[in-house]
């Protein structure tokens, strides 16, 4: 198993180089002139300005030279300073966010992480619980319900689902508003009395001992969390159900029953433990669907996280922000998948020895 993990770890940098090249190659689809426009902030763009920018940033250099400059930075022919270089933490300037991309990431990432973490609660509890119930009551009403629930889940486009819950629970019933906070609290949070420790409202409000703000923040999270987690519930439910069904058919379960163990002990000790191993492996898929989901969910519910930044950037061709989001999601996704594979090998001796 050690050899397997070492092999995976050795491949990782190779994959990351490939990923960054792919991202960079996508940007190269745009010609030098189009890309130069991304650097000039003020209108009009004269031919002279464009040429100066192309020269300054080396936009007509050969592909690999430009790629290298993008990675480690490039000497500015006018000032002699090094400019750019994602490895130096310089991700460029976000036109839609009107700030350096790295600042945008720092400010918006906590908001997205908060949303994703809270979403994990219903995903895991409801998804796994319902999936297990469905398998234990195979072909009974709860199983049929779970199956229909799951299949509706991954047939429902996130944006339609999000707009529908907004229509019902906000526009019709007025229970859960979009945004992050009600206006009076939003003003207060912006002012001096409230310290933003983490930029995650739920944590900050508790640290500021403002439980009214905490409750208000939670109320605003209900709909986005439901929207973001629905697809993943469905997926987890399905995997848990079929994994449980398979575990129930194993010989060791028959043996356990034959020994005279109660059905409860059989389920808890013999079935559930084995059934949940494959469930752990879809953690990667779940992270991917969350990363896809936040783009849509944050846009609909007007949440200023990374996802809505990516959507806004894509719409106005803010390449720097888009590349940063791509890079971020790719690094996260690859790392999660690696972790899952290693965990799988550790947890399941059949994989380790096979």
């Amino acid at each position, binding site marked *: 198993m050690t050899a397997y993990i070492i092999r995976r770890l050795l491949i990782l940098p190779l994959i990351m180089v490939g990923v960054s090249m792919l991202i960079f190659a996508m940007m190269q689809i745009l010609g030098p002139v189009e890309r130069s426009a991304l650097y000039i902030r003020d209108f009009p763009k004269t031919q002279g300005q464009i040429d100066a920018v192309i020269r300054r940033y080396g936009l007509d250099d050969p592909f690999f030279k430009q790629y290298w400059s993008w990675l480690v930075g490039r000497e500015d022919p006018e000032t002699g300073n090094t400019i750019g270089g994602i490895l130096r933490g310089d991700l460029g300037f976000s036109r839609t966010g009107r700030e350096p991309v790295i600042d945008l990431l720092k400010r918006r990432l906590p908001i997205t992480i908060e949303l994703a973490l809270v979403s994990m609660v219903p995903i895991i509890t409801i998804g796994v619980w319902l999936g297990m119930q469905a398998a234990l009551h195979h072909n009974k009403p709860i199983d049929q319900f779970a199956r229909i629930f799951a299949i509706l889940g991954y047939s429902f486009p996130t944006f*339609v689902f999000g707009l529908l819950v907004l229509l019902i629970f906000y526009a019709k019933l007025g229970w859960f508003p979009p945004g992050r906070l009600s206006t009076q609290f939003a003003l207060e949070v912006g002012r001096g009395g409230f310290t933003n420790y983490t930029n995650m409202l739920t944590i900050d409000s508790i640290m500021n001992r403002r439980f009214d703000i905490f409750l208000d923040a939670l109320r605003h999270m209900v709909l986005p969390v439901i929207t973001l987690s629905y697809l993943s519930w469905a997926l987890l439910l399905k995997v848990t159900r079929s994994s449980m069904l398979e575990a129930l058919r194993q010989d060791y379960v028959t043996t356990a029953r034959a020994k005279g163990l109660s059905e409860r002990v059989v389920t808890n000790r013999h079935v559930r433990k084995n059934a949940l191993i494959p469930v752990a492996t879809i953690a990667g898929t779940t992270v991917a669907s969350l990363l896809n989901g936040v783009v849509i969910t944050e846009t609909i519910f*007007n949440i200023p996280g990374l996802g809505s930044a990516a959507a806004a950037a*894509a719409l106005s061709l803010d390449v720097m922000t888009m590349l940063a*989001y791509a890079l971020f999601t790719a690094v996260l996704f690859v790392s999660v998948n690696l972790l899952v594979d290693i965990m799988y090998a550790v947890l399941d001796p059949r994989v380790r020895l096979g």
Partner: protein
Amino acid sequence: MTASTNPISPVAIPLDDQNLEEQRWLERLVGPEWARLIKGVLTNPLSISGLVIILGFILVATFAPVLAPPPDANWDTTLIPRDGFGPEPKPPGAAWRKSAPGTIPFWYTPLTGHEEWVHLWGTTSGQYDIYYGVIWGSRTALTIGGIVVLSSALIGIIIGATAGFYGGWVDEILMRVVEIFIAFPFLVGALILASILVPIMGRSIWPASIALIVFGWTGYARLLRGDILATKERDYVQAARAAGATDLHLIVRHILPNAIFPTLVVLSLDMGAIVLSFAALSFLGIGVQEGYTDWGQIVSFARSFILSLDQYWYIIVYPGMALLLYGLGWNLVGDALRDILDPKMRGKR
């Protein structure tokens, strides 16, 4: 693990003579695997409802000119006719003043009770007719699904087959390439590529379709590679090889037909999923131009009315239900196919 050791569900019920006769007839025609597949799909209530839904969309797409006639004979049917330019959406039943459909089909007056065309399902802001958009949107959906899924499958099959068949360093390189592409969450990758393609190619179905193909083929490649690794050492392949068959002949005639079944499952699931992703891109404003007959594009008009959705519910509900049903249809069929083809599920329900 065989059926006989299974304590939960009893062994398959023996087929009666008539069924057996029927199965033999089908088997002779398409072979045993296909016969089992077709029989399975046609006897499972879930997949039957899926097939009915898909058939429904095909019928709507075919008879779109009768269901929602364009304003005139030279009309580009992929564009939704607009009744003026007003920003305020009109509710279902509002009178249709400008560029109304040129003809009144036979079903219209008896079913709706109107003598003249009205906006059956209302209009969006900019006065695009929602009913026309949803009806003709079924053509867009089926076209997009067909183009994207077939292209990704073809690319994936070629790459996966090459990797699996030749193995060694070819396999190693191709699979690393696949890993690079799957490092992006699907929608994120497609969103970025599509938004870069739009200024170059202009607004049409192509930027988003190409982006979905570029990030969509990897699933097929991995699947087929695995299948081929499992099939290529079988005796009949070895026999054909010994008889002097070329590589291409081996792959196309002996390996692919036996490795293709799991691909079918993904193919049918993708027919739904791809269209939903395409709609999500349209919803975000990437891809087709405003007024294109695309369900996601129609829903995107709702974004301007987030706070008053109860008033403009028809902008979401009609195209949204079309998307849900379309996705549901393909998912039902795909799920049933998976259960039929899963060897662990054989002989069970």
